[in-house]
């Protein structure tokens, strides 16, 4: 006899010793879920808040920062334009994420479900990528303008030799690169751990199709 048929014969005979009462089920309904989707959603909300705070906090707490900004953006319209642009991008991502999150339905078939979870993940990935690019551009520009518009520093720089200049800009560049790399590694680790099993299962299903 086939091994599985032997198993099948036994499978339905088993009466489960663990019987959960209606009372216990009621209690379970009000407990928290520990699903990947939920965790993904919380993490992405956390990311949004984090990046928004990074953008907004210095504005409120640092007078020097504000002065600097006034210096750099003598034209206020440019600043407003940049802000409107960056916040609308954040809003677009929030909307996409929300939509993707909504479309995850546990009653779909397994493959579709995994696809929609991975799609959600992709949106977060693009959002992170966008942030890293913007952050590195902002950092480089900030350093450049910071140096240019701070009289003490720029005076010193004017006297510096070209090798010294080269080293200073090189260090700036390197710091930005390290910063971006750290973030990237952090995300890689975070999502890698979270989605390892899902990715494996999805691949398994995918392989069936070829």
């Amino acid at each position: 006899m086939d091994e599985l048929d032997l198993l099948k014969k036994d499978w339905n005979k088993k009466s489960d010793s663990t019987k959960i009462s209606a009372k216990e089920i009621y209690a379970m309904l009000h407990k928290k879920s520990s699903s990947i989707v939920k965790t993904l959603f919380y993490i992405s909300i956390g990311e949004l808040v984090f990046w928004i705070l990074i953008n907004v906090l210095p504005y409120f707490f640092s007078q020097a920062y504000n002065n600097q900004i006034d210096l750099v953006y003598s034209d206020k319209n440019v600043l407003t334009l940049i802000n409107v642009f960056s916040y609308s991008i954040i809003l677009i991502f929030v909307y996409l994420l929300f939509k993707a999150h909504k479309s995850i339905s546990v009653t779909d078939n397994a493959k579709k479900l995994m696809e929609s979870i991975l799609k959600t993940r992709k949106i977060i990935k693009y959002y992170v990528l966008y942030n890293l690019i913007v952050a590195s551009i902002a950092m480089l520009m900030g350093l450049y303008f910071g140096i240019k518009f701070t009289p003490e520093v720029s005076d010193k720089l004017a006297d510096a030799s070209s090798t010294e200049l080269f080293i200073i800009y090189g260090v700036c560049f390197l710091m930005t690169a390290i910063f971006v790399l750290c973030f990237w590694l952090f995300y890689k680790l975070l999502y890698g751990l979270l989605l390892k099993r899902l990715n494996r299962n999805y691949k398994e299903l995918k392989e069936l199709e070829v």
Partner: protein
Amino acid sequence: MNKELEHNFVELLEKHQNIVHKVCRLYTNNYDAHNDLFQEITIQLWKAYPKFRGDAKFSTWMYRVGLNTAITLYRKSKRTINTQDFDGVAFKIKADYYDDTEEQQLKILYQAVHQLNDIEKALVFLYLEDKDYREISETLGISEVNARVKMNRIKTKLKTILNP
């Protein structure tokens, strides 16, 4: 969510809970993990319940949600990979069915099934539940042909695990 809906749901789940227990039995191998997964599936069922229109049988719908939860949503995977402590759960076989060699064989079989991956377990589960290939393919989102091919591969895989 209103009380009546909740009441109906609890009643249905209590009646059909065996399905969830069976999913847990395949995907976990200790008491705590079993209960964790049971709870997670219950929560997912409850969340999806308002959308349950009754066009499928409640039990069929439970298969889907239960397996999906086990395959995709449940992330405490550490507990499910370890097959070493499987003996501890010891599937009890009723006294009237007692047969030393068959009992032994079944025990080894269950251990072998536990070594399969999540997708393979889902297929085995549906197979054990007497689902036809059409239903298996619909639940997993693959074609019927693929389901058949995969099932045959699993049978071979089990054979090699059993007779190395």
